[in-house]
């Protein structure tokens, strides 16, 4: 979580990582996931929130979430 809080994230989905100077873009769901992670929500809570917010079932939401978490870890944005 501490890595996530060090990121500069705009409402447009632009992510700046000050420790390396790298920047990324993310879509609406990615932005939502990051914000939920920052709030300390669990994976199940995030999946529930996504299914509430978007027209998507829990299996698809879970798959998207774990893919996104892999991406965040791979880019060293998540502990």
């Amino acid at each position, binding site marked *: 979580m501490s890595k996530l809080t*060090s990121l*500069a994230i705009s409402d447009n989905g632009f992510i*700046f990582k*000050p*420790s*390396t*100077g790298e920047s990324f873009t993310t879509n609406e769901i990615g932005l939502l996931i990051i914000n939920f992670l920052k709030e300390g929500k669990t994976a199940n809570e995030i999946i529930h929130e996504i299914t509430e917010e978007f027209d998507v079932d829990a299996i698809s939401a879970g798959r998207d979430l774990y893919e996104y978490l892999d991406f965040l870890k791979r880019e060293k944005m998540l502990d």
Partner: protein
Amino acid sequence: MEQKKITIAVTGLNNIDNPGPGVPVIRGIKDSGMNVRVIGLAYENLEPGIYMPGLVDKTYLMPFPSTGSEAFLERLAYIHEIEELDIIIPNFDSELYLFIKYSDQLLKMGIHTFLPTMEQFEERHKDNLPEYAKKYNIKVPESIAITNSNELSNLPKPLSYPYYIKGKFYEAFKVVNKSQGVYYFNKLSAKWGLPIIVQQAIHGTEVNVIALGDGEGNTVSAVAMRKQYITDKGKAWGGITLNDERLLEITHDIIKKTKWRGAMELEMIKTDAGDYHLIEINPRIPAWVYLAVGAGQNIPEMVCRLAMGEKVTPVREYEYGKMFIRYSWDLIGDIADFEKIIIFGEL
């Protein structure tokens, strides 16, 4: 009461595709609001800084440092007689030796500098990096200084392809086979002399720090940057400031141990494992200094104040995510100006 006007001479006005730091140094000084008169010292008659409107108050051509110290000092004495210089900020590696060697003489004339000592300057040379690393406990890639291209066939282990072949003062090329190595050896030795440095390539991201040491072990200023776009000459076309605590910690440590005096640039490779390998120390202000100014640390101003004997309070904070993007811009000049530089060596 108005602040006394100080006259500052600056070299490195070659704002070309391999830019010297002179123009951004002057921009920093002017941004500081100091009451200054800026004198440009140029080596070539087409250095853009000579002709940039509002940049320098006057420019003088200088003899190349390779001409010898006598001509160099004579020219400086002539300029000083007219301009009454208070400070000189030299910005080329190749001229630093003379400025450091004669800094006491310059000071007697009333010209202040803020440069590393001769020992500091000599010991961080590229061909001396392994010893330097050992002495100050810094990680560096394997490297060796060679004076003959035949030595490329028999490089000591663990040096292997790919490696960088580097000129004594400037330029580096990545080499993946022997014929490339020999080609670049000949090219660089003809241009910059011997030795040539062979340095193991390390996989990772290049990160850089501009820093200023007060000569007593304190880091007065330090800003970390990553190049975002690199030209075919290996120069940054764009860069961004970083919040890399470990990198700044290493910088503070090097300055503390070496008691570095003056500005410097540390070039490092950060590996995926998070290790930092020092690949070069440039003993001067780098050309991207204006990024540091934009991020909140006006290093040219601090250099001037330290040179004049003022105490400068160390600055730690700067803005992360500040970017610079270089651009080219065609200045329209007049043949009459060019004529003055050619005929009189002054403009």
